[in-house]
C-alpha cells in the first residue's frame, strides 16, 4: 500500500481524463451539490489536493434498506462514489474482509485518519440491558459507536433508524432503541431521515460534504435543508386536487383512477418533510403518492406510532383502532348536551318550586321590582 494516497485529480489523470474533463467534473459536482459558480474553484482545489476521504459506515439495529437505497443512487452512480470519490473502509454490507480482518480495517482507519474520517451510521442503538440487543464482534453497538465517533470529523445518520429511532423505537421500544444524536455530542451530526432516504438524497449529502468540506445547512432537527425544508404536500403534484377538495374516497375508486388527492386515505404528506415530491424515487420514476398510496410519513420521528396509516388522525391511545379525537369529541359533546338537558330540566323544576314558595310566603315582591329600576 502507498503511504501517500493519490489525490482525486491524480487518480482521474491516471485514468486518462484530461484536465478539461476534470474541471467539467468538478463543476458538475459543484452543481450537483447546489454550489454557485463562484464556488467551483474551491471544489477544484479540494479535489486536487485531497486523497479520497476515508469513510466508515457502521451498522446497528437496521434493516439495511439504507445501504440498499444508497447503492441505487443514479447521480452520482455508486460505483463512481466507491471507486473515485470516497474510500469506504468499513461497511459490513459490501466489504470483502470479515471478522478480525474487517475490524482491522476499521481500526486502521480510525488510527490513521483520526479527526478526518467521516462516520456514517445506519441503524438505531439499543441502550437497554448493557446493549445486549446488538453486538458486533462481541461488543455492544453503543460501545462501538462511542469509540468510532470519537475521532470522526462529522457524523451522518442514515435513515430514520439512526436519525430518530424508527421502527425498533416504536412503542413499546423493547430494546431501548435510541438515535445517534441522543448518545453522541460534540460532533457535527447530520440527520438524513427516511425509511429509507431517497438514494440521491444520500449521495447528495455525501457529495456536499466532499465538495465543500463543510456541513450543509441544517434545520432545527439537524436535517439538510436542501432536502428537508418542504413538506411532501408542498411539492405534491396532486396538490391542486387537495385545494379543489377532490379526494380519493376509497382505494381504486373512480377518484383514485383520476389521481385525486389521497388525504382522506390517510396521506401524511401534509405533516412530512421530505423531497419525494420533487426528486421522486429511483431516479425520478415515481413516489408513493404517484403510485396511488398515501405517504406514511416515513421521514418523521415516531411516524410508526401515529397509525393507523389509513386515517387522517391517529387513533386515541387506549381506545379501539379507529377511535380518533373526533369520535371521543363527539361522545363528549353528546354527554355534555345530555348533561345540560338534565341540568336544565331539574333547574326548571326547582325554580318553579322556589317561585311557588316565594309567592306563598312573601309580601315584599313589589320592593324587588323597585330596586331593579
Amino acid at each position, binding site marked *: 500500500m502507498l503511504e501517500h494516497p493519490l489525490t482525486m485529480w491524480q487518480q482521474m489523470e491516471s485514468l486518462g481524463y484530461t484536465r478539461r474533463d476534470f474541471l467539467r467534473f468538478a463543476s458538475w459536482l459543484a452543481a450537483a451539490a447546489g454550489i454557485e459558480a463562484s464556488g467551483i474553484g474551491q471544489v477544484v482545489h479540494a479535489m486536487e489536493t485531497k486523497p479520497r476521504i476515508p469513510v466508515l459506515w457502521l451498522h446497528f439495529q437496521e434493516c439495511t434498506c439504507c445501504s440498499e437505497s444508497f447503492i441505487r443512487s443514479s447521480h452520482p452512480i455508486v460505483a463512481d462514489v466507491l471507486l473515485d470519490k470516497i474510500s469506504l473502509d468499513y461497511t459490513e454490507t459490501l466489504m470483502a474482509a470479515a471478522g478480525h480482518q474487517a475490524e482491522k480495517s476499521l481500526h486502521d482507519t480510525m488510527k490513521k485518519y483520526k479527526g478526518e474520517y467521516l462516520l456514517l451510521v445506519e441503524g438505531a442503538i439499543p441502550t437497554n440491558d448493557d446493549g445486549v440487543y446488538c453486538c458486533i464482534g462481541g461488543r455492544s453497538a453503543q460501545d462501538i459507536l462511542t469509540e468510532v465517533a470519537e475521532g470522526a470529523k462529522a457524523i451522518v445518520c442514515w435513515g430514520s433508524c439512526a436519525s430518530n429511532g424508527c421502527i425498533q423505537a416504536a412503542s413499546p421500544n423493547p430494546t431501548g432503541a435510541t438515535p445517534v444524536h441522543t448518545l453522541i455530542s460534540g460532533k457535527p451530526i447530520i440527520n438524513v431521515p427516511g425509511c429509507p432516504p431517497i438514494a440521491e438524497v444520500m449521495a447528495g449529502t455525501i457529495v456536499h460534504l466532499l465538495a465543500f468540506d463543510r456541513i450543509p445547512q441544517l434545520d432545527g432537527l439537524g436535517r439538510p435543508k436542501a432536502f428537508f425544508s418542504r413538506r411532501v404536500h408542498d411539492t405534491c403534484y396532486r396538490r391542486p386536487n*387537495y*385545494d*379543489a377538495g377532490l379526494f380519493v374516497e376509497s382505494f381504486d375508486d373512480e377518484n383514485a383512477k383520476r389521481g385525486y388527492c389521497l388525504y382522506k386515505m390517510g396521506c401524511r404528506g401534509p405533516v412530512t418533510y421530505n423531497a419525494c415530491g420533487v426528486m421522486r424515487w429511483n431516479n425520478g420514476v415515481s413516489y408513493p403518492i404517484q403510485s396511488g398510496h398515501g405517504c406514511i410519513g416515513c421521514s418523521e420521528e415516531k*411516524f410508526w406510532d401515529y397509525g393507523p396509516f389509513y386515517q387522517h388522525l391517529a387513533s386515541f391511545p387506549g381506545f379501539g383502532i379507529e377511535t380518533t379525537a*373526533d369520535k371521543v369529541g363527539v361522545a363528549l359533546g353528546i354527554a*355534555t348536551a345530555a348533561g345540560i338537558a338534565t*341540568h336544565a330540566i331539574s333547574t326548571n323544576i326547582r325554580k318553579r318550586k322556589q317561585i311557588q314558595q316565594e309567592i306563598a310566603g312573601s309580601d315584599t315582591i313589589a320592593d324587588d321590582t323597585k*330596586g331593579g329600576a
Partner: protein
Amino acid sequence: MQHAQISRVYVWQLPVRFYHWINALSVLVLVITGYLIGSPPAVQSGSEASFGYWFGTVRFVHFLAAFLFFFNFVYRIYWGFVGNRYARWQNFIPYRKEQLEEVKEVLKVDIFQRSVKPLESVGHNALAGITYFISFIAFLFQCITGFGMYAAMSKAALPALFAWIVPLMGGDFAVRQWHHAMMWFFVLFSMIHVYLVFYHDYVEARGVTSSMVGGWKFVEKHKL
C-alpha cells in the same frame, strides 16, 4: 325578610364586549372550518382540479379567522392590564380567600343547584374566572400550534415566531393531532359556557346574558 336594593352597574366596557363577540364569531368559524379541514366531505367528484378551490377556500377562511382570533386575543390580554376592574387579570385567577370560597359556592350552585347565599362578585364569578383563564390557555395553545403549522406554508414573520413548537412536539403530525383534539375543548367549552350564562341569568336574574351586549348588570347595592 329584608330585600336588597338593586342597581345597574356598567361591568363590560365596549372593548370587552367587542372582544367577546369577535372571539365568539371567530371560534365558531374556526371550529367549523377546522372540522372540515380534518374531515372534508365528498362534495365534488368527476371534476377537474382547475375548476374548483373549495377546500382551499375553507382553509383560507380558517387562516383568516385565525388571524382575527389571534389579534383579538392579543388585544384582550392588553385590555386585562388597562381595562376596568372587571376586565383585569386579578379576576381570572382565584388567589384570594374569598375567591376560593366563591369557587366552592358556584360549584354548589351549578352542580348541586343550591342557592343559599347569593353570589358576591359583580364581574365574573371566581369559578367563571378560572374557566376563562383555562380557556385563555387553550386559546394560546391553539394559536401556537396553529401558527406553528402555518409557519411551514408561510414566509411571514408572525407564524415563524411559533415554528419552535414543531420540533418540541416531535413533528407536524403531533402538532396537528393536538391542534385537532383541542378543537373539542372549544366545542365543549362553548356548549357549557353558553348554557351556564343562561342558567345564571335564570336563577339569579341579574341580566348576565344581556350584559355582554349592553355592558350592564343588575347588582344588589350592598355589594358595590
